[in-house]
């Protein structure tokens, strides 16, 4: 019986192949979505332009305005989309593994409502008072503060019970939503702005934002990835993981903080885009299986690809908030998955 053994090593090959496919799809997606927008630029021109930037060929024939559209408007948007997709998918995967609950998403521990309260405060009370970074900064503070609050309430005697954490997250989120509604009802003069922020969008994306977001998001991603095996073991139950040599309480705390941080970094610039953190891990699990060692990089790529395309659609549909599109396509797709896998224990 040699078969399962070779099959096991085939698994690693399968993982590599999946990553190669996904990176290829990502590259093609970047080129194709750069073409999409109010002004159409042919993908061939885009490749030529990219080539000239890298000093690989000459591009005298392409108008200068295209270069501005592509390099100053679309590419930063696409790269920010990739980063946010990566961040949300990673946080979603982490929290679903941590909670052993397929319904968990990055916003479940109060991050979204915290960020929203921070952002709306800034939009309503200090409109562009300091700079264009006021809102992202306030959103980040709000997200971190909300997570800290949930975490503090949920822990008893240095331990975190995941059930308590989930319920605390819901309670704090509801409370913050009330604060949010109150501000929108009594204080704010810019409801459209707030609404746009809540649904999320990339229309303000710039290279500067990409530069700010890239470091925390990548650092968090790699740190979370260090815990891939721990999360696998934790799927067997926390006590089993403990007897497998994992410091479960420490791992839980570190992973919670990292996923709060990576999510906060993602939403602070683009608003609370929904559904990515919930459905991307599920889709990826169907593609590559439940092993976190492949699930993290694969879902990061799938998340990036998904957001790049939904944002392209948002551009075409006249700068619609991208959150509307993710939910519009995400929700039916999620229901489809739910129905399809009803027999499996996983969704019971």
């Amino acid at each position, binding site marked *: *019986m040699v*078969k*399962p*053994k070779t*099959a*096991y*090593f085939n698994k*690693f090959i399968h993982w590599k192949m999946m990553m190669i496919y996904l990176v290829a799809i990502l590259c093609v997606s970047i080129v194709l979505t750069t073409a999409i927008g109010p002004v159409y630029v042919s993908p061939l021109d885009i490749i030529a332009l990219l080539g000239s930037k890298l000093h690989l060929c000459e591009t005298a024939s392409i108008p200068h305005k295209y270069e501005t559209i592509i390099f100053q408007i679309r590419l930063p948007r696409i790269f920010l989309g990739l980063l946010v997709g990566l961040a949300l998918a990673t946080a979603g995967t982490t929290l679903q593994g941590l909670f*052993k609950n397929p319904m968990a998403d990055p916003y479940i521990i109060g991050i979204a409502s915290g960020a929203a309260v921070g952002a709306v405060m800034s939009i309503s009370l200090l409109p562009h008072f300091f700079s264009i970074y006021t809102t992202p900064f306030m959103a980040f503070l709000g997200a971190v503060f909300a997570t800290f609050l949930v975490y503090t309430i949920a822990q008893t005697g240095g331990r975190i019970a995941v059930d308590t954490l989930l319920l605390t997250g819901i309670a704090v989120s509801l409370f913050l939503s009330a604060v949010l509604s109150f501000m929108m009802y009594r204080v704010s003069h810019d409801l459209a702005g707030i609404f746009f922020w809540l649904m999320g969008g990339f229309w303000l994306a710039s290279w500067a934002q990409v530069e700010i977001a890239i470091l925390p998001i990548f650092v968090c991603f790699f740190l979370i990835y*260090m*815990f891939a*095996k721990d999360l*696998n*073991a934790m*799927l*067997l*139950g926390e*006590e*089993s993981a*403990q*007897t*497998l*040599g*994992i*410091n479960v309480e420490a791992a839980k705390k570190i992973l919670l903080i990292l996923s709060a941080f990576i999510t906060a970094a993602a939403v602070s610039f683009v608003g609370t885009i929904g559904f990515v953190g919930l459905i991307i891990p599920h889709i990826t*699990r169907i593609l590559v*299986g*439940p*092993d976190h060692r492949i699930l993290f990089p694969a879902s990061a790529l799938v998340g990036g690809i998904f957001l790049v395309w939904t944002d392209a659609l948002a551009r075409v549909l006249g700068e619609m908030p991208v959150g509307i599109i993710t939910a519009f396509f995400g929700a039916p797709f999620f229901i489809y998955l739910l129905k399809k896998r009803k027999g*499996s*224990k*996983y969704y019971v």
Partner: protein
Amino acid sequence: MCSNSLKINGKMSLEIKDVDAHYGSTKILDSINFSASHGELMGIIGPNGSGKTTLLRTISRILKPKVGTILLEGRDVQGMKDKEFSRNFAAVPQDTTINFDFSALDIVLIGRNPHLGRLELETEKDIEIARRSMELTNCWRLAERPITELSGGERQLVIIARALTQEPKVLLLDEPTSHLDIKYQIEIMKLLKRLTTEEKLIVIAVIHDLNLAARYCDRLVLLHEGKIITLGTQTQVLTAENIKNTFGASVIVKKHVLTNQCYVSPVPSPLKHENKNEAGRVTIHLICGGGEGASLMHVLAAKGYSVTAGVVNLLDTDYEVAKLLNIPVVAEAPFSPITQEAFQAHLTLADKANMVVLCNIPFGSGNLKNLEVAEAALKRKKALLVFDTTNIEKRDFTNGEAAKRFIALKTKGALTVKNEEEVLKAIK
């Protein structure tokens, strides 16, 4: 039992010393002391809530003992690093459900975690170890199947293989056989036995089924309210008295006919005592042995009659039932003929009774004196009931003497009965 021969270097391998464990402010374990050697299968038994699982959780370092130490080969386990600890101790939890679609081999390979670095992939060697564990537990055939599709018994085998893949010295299992059918119960217990004898593991298992525990464990620990009540071989631990005191259940402990292991079976709880006062004044003496009087004892005691019995051998079912029902009984050492002293005691006891019942017992030279007691009862004009369900010739091993005297009893006025109901009727 044979634990002495299993000691390595004359020193116990796993020592639990004065361990107290608390949940919050509630004390769950109270100065637990025991040790186990390499190659020993220890069963932890006890009623629900007696602290069995807590004991296992304490040994597996999930719960930190408030007082006391746990030593493995002389080393304090609290001083070990997480990964080092899990290279020595592996645990199989009570609940083994896994909701994610890992293959069985994936699950087993998670057991290599303590031996691998954070980003290290499994190598040929790790898969070889996983394969060996899975062959040992007879589940290699399931390697590629998704864990979510396996039956409870198959999953249990995979989880044990996962624990073995840690290459531990100590294997801890929390009720590994509950929820499993009898085939898997036996398969798992045999496996645990094999792991101790062949792999020299220390196996400590919480086991609910007393008979399975008796059948396979080298030694048993009986827990009650967080304390060890007894610790020792099955014969020392599994006594009707111990079980009554801890589980509050009435049982008979017999030796299994095939294996000579302790075999525990429940006694039906006494029926409602009907007009006890009136019945209590009537004393009925049973001449029994070999289990022939057990059910009658139970019926009569339940009806409220005073019952006495004799002469039975110690460890005989009749003896145990009599002890259980608090029936005064004259007993003799196992396989010994009735001594004069026992005979006299028996005669006195029978003389006090209002009625004597001779059960359907076989006669040999050893217990012929019991027949004499029946004859004496008749002489004193006491009512004598004799069971005659098996032909006397078939249960006579005295070359006809017992048969002759038995028939004489019947002609001299003994009343023949066939079952317990006829006895009850006759008493009235």
